[in-house]
């Protein structure tokens, strides 16, 4: 994640923004052509599945070893059995202290999506303006660079005071979290439209609308979506922490609550679930990105 969030050169330099974008912006053609024939593809998929199994078995072995040495840590089998217990009744709701893990995850997802949506609505237009105007870039970029490295959790008290409500404070924290990667990636995508494309628009006298619609947006969409993908990834990490602070409900609260009930096996189960949900979110964005990517013609 640090790749894209690194120190930002001004947009006017020769270095195109996409070059600094993390790997997800891959021209579609190169991905597609790697597939090969059907049988070979199935074989290579089988092989990578096999390697993944080896990785998880290794993890389990190391974990088992550590659990046998440290007192109080659940073993892998205790974690897995806690997971099956949790998943046997994911959506029960017996009052604020006994909710199914599915409900907790849904609550967290809802907060993440809400904060993320607000952040996207704010960050994309500002990022586009920053990318299009060198001067506005110079106005906004220092502010963004100063605020970006701040842990979003530091904003939680401000959210609490302004919104007077812990769950909304959590949404506010997610909003702040999801702002920066989207903002900066959008600005770079827009700023790095190649001169060739601009010249085409000039020679064939594209109107401003047509330029935005047919050159600027299609060119910068992969960068924008990549920014959103990074924002979503961080937001999903931050929600766990902020819900430990905000309390009440959500998967972060669930983890903290399980710890207080001395139920570490459930903590382990929650970690696995959080990982799976995060992976699915990222895969979803990967799909969207593929949809908006284009092969560089030359």
């Amino acid at each position, binding site marked *: 994640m640090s790749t894209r969030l690194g120190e930002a050169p001004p947009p006017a330099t020769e270095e195109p923004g996409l070059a600094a974008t993390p790997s997800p912006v891959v021209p579609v053609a190169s991905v597609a052509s790697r597939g090969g024939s059907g049988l070979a593809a199935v074989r290579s998929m089988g092989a990578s599945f096999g390697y993944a199994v080896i990785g998880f078995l290794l993890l389990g072995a190391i974990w088992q070893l550590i659990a046998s040495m440290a007192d109080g840590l659940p073993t892998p089998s205790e974690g897995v059995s806690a997971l099956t217990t949790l998943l046997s009744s994911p959506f029960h709701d017996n009052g604020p202290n006994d909710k199914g893990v599915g409900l907790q995850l849904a609550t967290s997802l809802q907060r993440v999506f809400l904060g993320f949506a607000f952040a996207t609505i704010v960050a994309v237009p500002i990022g586009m303006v920053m990318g299009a105007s060198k001067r506005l870039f110079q106005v906004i970029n220092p502010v963004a660079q100063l605020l970006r490295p701040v842990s979003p959790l530091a904003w939680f008290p401000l959210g609490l005071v302004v919104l007077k409500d812990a769950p909304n404070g959590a949404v506010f924290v997610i909003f702040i979290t999801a702002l920066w990667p989207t903002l900066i990636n959008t600005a770079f995508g827009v700023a790095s439209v190649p001169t060739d*494309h601009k010249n085409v628009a000039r020679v064939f006298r*594209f109107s401003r609308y047509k330029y935005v619609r047919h050159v600027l947006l299609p060119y910068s969409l992969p960068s924008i979506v990549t920014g959103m993908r990074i924002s979503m990834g961080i937001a999903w990490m931050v929600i766990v922490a902020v819900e430990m602070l905000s309390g009440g409900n959500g998967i972060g609260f669930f983890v903290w609550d399980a710890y207080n009930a001395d139920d570490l096996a459930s903590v382990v189960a929650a970690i696995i679930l959080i990982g799976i949900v995060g992976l699915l979110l990222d895969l979803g964005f990967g799909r969207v990105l593929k949809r908006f990517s284009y092969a560089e*013609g*030359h």
Partner: protein
Amino acid sequence: MALEIQGVRKTFHTRNGSQEVLRGVDLTIAKGEFISVIGHSGCGKSTLLSAIGGLVKPDAGQIVLDGETVTGPGPDRAIVFQNYSLLPWMSVYDNVYEAAHSARPDRSKDESRAATEKYLRSTGLWQHASKRPDQISGGMRQRAAVARAFSVGPKVLLLDEPFGALDALTRAHLQNQLMDLWGSESDTETVVMVTHGIDEAIFLADRVVVMANAPLPSVAAVIEVAIERPRTKATITADPRYQEVTEELVHLLQEKLVVPEPIAA
């Protein structure tokens, strides 16, 4: 009326200092002429083409087309760029249509569609019109770029090393296609083509403009190619006048205008 280039100068300023790329270029191109511009790398030939296209503003001097000074891009001129410059997210059809339609607001959508179809057909791309640029070959991309330029119906067509990246057979094929389009079907009267290839420059042009590098980046010589059309590769190479012009150009480019080897730092 004609295309007149009058005392055009251009200097680029970079962090590493200034580089003068055009110093007092004067050239008058008659209506209906095919001009090749040839010279070593860095002689400013592409800059001259961009200036005619209205993409680069001269520091001094002016470019006058049919009595009007060029101040920017216009529908009377179209450029075929060096690296095709098709928009990679659009189909071949849309690449041509969007350009044709926005460059010519005086046309109706149907007229723009008709122009698009006409030039996609005459460049043999009609059955590939729905493909995206990455799905077709380099030669086809270049034909799409040519179709896009012609579809605007420009008086002056500007080509910036259009066939440089193509293999010899494809290049020969496209040269013929360009001649056909220019000679018969299109509204385009005048062509200015920047090239590296001596053969290509002579084969296509009525006059070959030779440009020199610094210290005097300007027109060094203009050589007439008085060979009647239609020309074919087979007939023209046997023509003594062709050999004469080739020798003259080779002499100019390889002996008189030779660029000193850069001294290793």
